[in-house]
């Protein structure tokens, strides 16, 4: 059937209007929850800022802490941020959701925000749903694409299906997958700063201690090269050959659930459906069989290499380059020859 030229033009201008309507609701404004530690903004917050910018022309950023001034300054320098809202209190020092959620609720009410964005990190996941429920609205988790101010795309079933959803709530709380959005620019901005509204800071939960990995290597969630070790590594000591390879490539090391469960490496190295989702330029899976739940965490890597002595390992099905070999020989050889 031929469409007339006129009907084609009508259809196209309607589509453009719809697009503009979807993306720029005039009264839309977005609040970004800034995650930070040691006066440094978490890399995933920069990816979340890119996502926030798609929702509305104005993005404000909420920075809270015991001494937030340094982070507030860094945040004000982000070109994508128009306003920094700063809350200073001891209660915010360790990211406790019982303190952060009421603060977020107060900031949303005071600022009339229509969209609240955070990274789908342990911190974002901890705070956003609590705040959303306090405002009696749903939350959309782990968004990988923003198609409109109310339309989002997100993975389900460990990324084996992709859902297109539409939120009917007046206020939209979303967490975004950091690997799905490029990091926002970090310098050149000059946002204004204002004090956050007051919120309940007397919380009964107490921070006791933390055990965090210290590393000079790139952060697992944003590294360009990742070498992952699995059950086949047989011990934590053996991970040294992976660290050597990672260092040669300027990358970092991750692990499968099996390796973490076996005590080879700490939990923050886990890549997978319920661990970290990564999408590096290069992922080298060593001694990893490739269970569905692990694939969920790395199948968006640009190039995947697999080294495993089992030719039937499922990982080979997603690998661009598969080497069936003894990893204890192949990995040091690879490090040497690169």
């Amino acid at each position, binding site marked *: 059937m031929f469409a007339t030229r006129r009907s084609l033009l009508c259809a196209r201008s309607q589509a453009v209007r719809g697009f503009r309507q979807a993306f720029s609701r005039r009264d839309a404004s977005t609040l970004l929850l800034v995650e930070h530690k040691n006066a440094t903004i978490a890399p995933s917050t920069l990816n979340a800022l890119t996502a926030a910018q798609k929702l509305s022309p104005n993005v404000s950023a909420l920075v809270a802490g015991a001494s937030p001034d340094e982070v507030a300054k860094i945040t004000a320098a982000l070109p994508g941020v128009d306003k920094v809202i700063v809350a200073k209190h001891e209660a915010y020092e360790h990211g406790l*959701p*019982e303190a952060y959620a009421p603060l977020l609720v107060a900031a949303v009410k005071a600022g009339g925000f229509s969209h609240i964005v955070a990274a789908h990190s*342990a*911190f974002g*996941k*901890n705070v*956003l*749903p609590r705040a959303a*429920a306090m405002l009696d*609205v*749903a*939350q959309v*988790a*782990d968004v990988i694409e923003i198609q409109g101010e109310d339309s989002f795309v997100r*993975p*389900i*079933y*460990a*990324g*084996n*299906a*992709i*859902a*297109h*959803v*539409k*939120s009917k*709530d007046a206020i939209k709380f979303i967490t975004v997958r950091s690997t799905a959005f490029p990091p926002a620019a970090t310098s050149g901005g000059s946002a204004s700063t204002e004090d956050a509204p007051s919120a309940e800071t007397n919380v009964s*939960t*107490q*921070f*006791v*201690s*933390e*055990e*965090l990995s210290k590393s000079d290597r790139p952060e697992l*969630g944003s590294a360009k090269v990742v070498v992952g070790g699995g059950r086949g590594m047989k011990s934590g000591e053996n991970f040294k050959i992976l660290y050597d390879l990672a260092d040669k*490539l300027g990358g970092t090391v991750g692990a499968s*659930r099996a390796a973490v469960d076996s005590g080879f490496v*700490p*939990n*923050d190295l886990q890549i997978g*459906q*319920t661990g970290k989702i990564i999408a590096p330029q*290069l992922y080298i899976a060593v001694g990893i069989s490739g269970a*569905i*739940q692990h694939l969920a965490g790395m199948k968006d890597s*640009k190039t*995947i*290499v697999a080294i495993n002595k089992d030719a039937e390992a499922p990982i*080979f099905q*997603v*690998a*661009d*380059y*598969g*080497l069936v070999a003894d990893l204890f020989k192949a990995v040091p*050889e*690879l490090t040497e*020859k690169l």
Partner: protein
Amino acid sequence: MSLRVLVPIKRVVDYAVKIRVANGRVDTANLKHSMNPFDEIALEEAVRMKEKKAAKEVIAFSVGPTKSQDVLRTALAMGADTAVHVEVAEGQEVQPLQVAKLIKAFAEKEKPELVILGKQAIDDDSSQTGQMLAGLLGWPQATFASKIEVKDGSKITVTREVDGGLETISAPLPAVVTADLRLNEPRFATLPNIMKARKKPLTKLSPKDLGVDVTPTIETVKVEEPPKRVGGAKVESVDELVAKLKAAGVV
């Protein structure tokens, strides 16, 4: 001091089953279903608390269609004392906020000191219900728990798995905890226990009984398959691997 522990559980497609996307939705008909693995871990933790005499009663709770009774029976076989089924129509989607409201309504009547549930359901992967429940109740929350200690029946100390490693917090009861992978390894229900579970009470409620409207506010417009990753190419040696990676500009 002995606690009453409420464990919300969800019936989901079994974690090992490969799901299929057809006609714009996930086709779950005739697929094996099981208790959400993280909820199994939560339930196991509650049963262990009972065995250690830190808890005196474990109540399993599930929102879902008639078939959700399967996972409630499994929970009873694993050691829960009673089960509550909030029944909804087959195919009725109940989202985290509405589930949280149902649990809240029940908790306000039954007054458990501890609610422990899985950190996320492996079908929708939202990771929200526990946090929302805590927000609605105004209770402390301890998510992604890999260790829980109950102190004097009035306080919990929880070690959580976070992005940088581990964090330990303490909070007074009542509280909401969400269970992570390494909290414990759940037991298998033994046949004698499965038989005994048939005699344990399973109460049915409706959302109306709890005064909750379960209408979802997030509409699923369509579901698609993810882009297919084509792999499978093999190299014969490290030399060939290096050559190919260099040729492709990867290294």
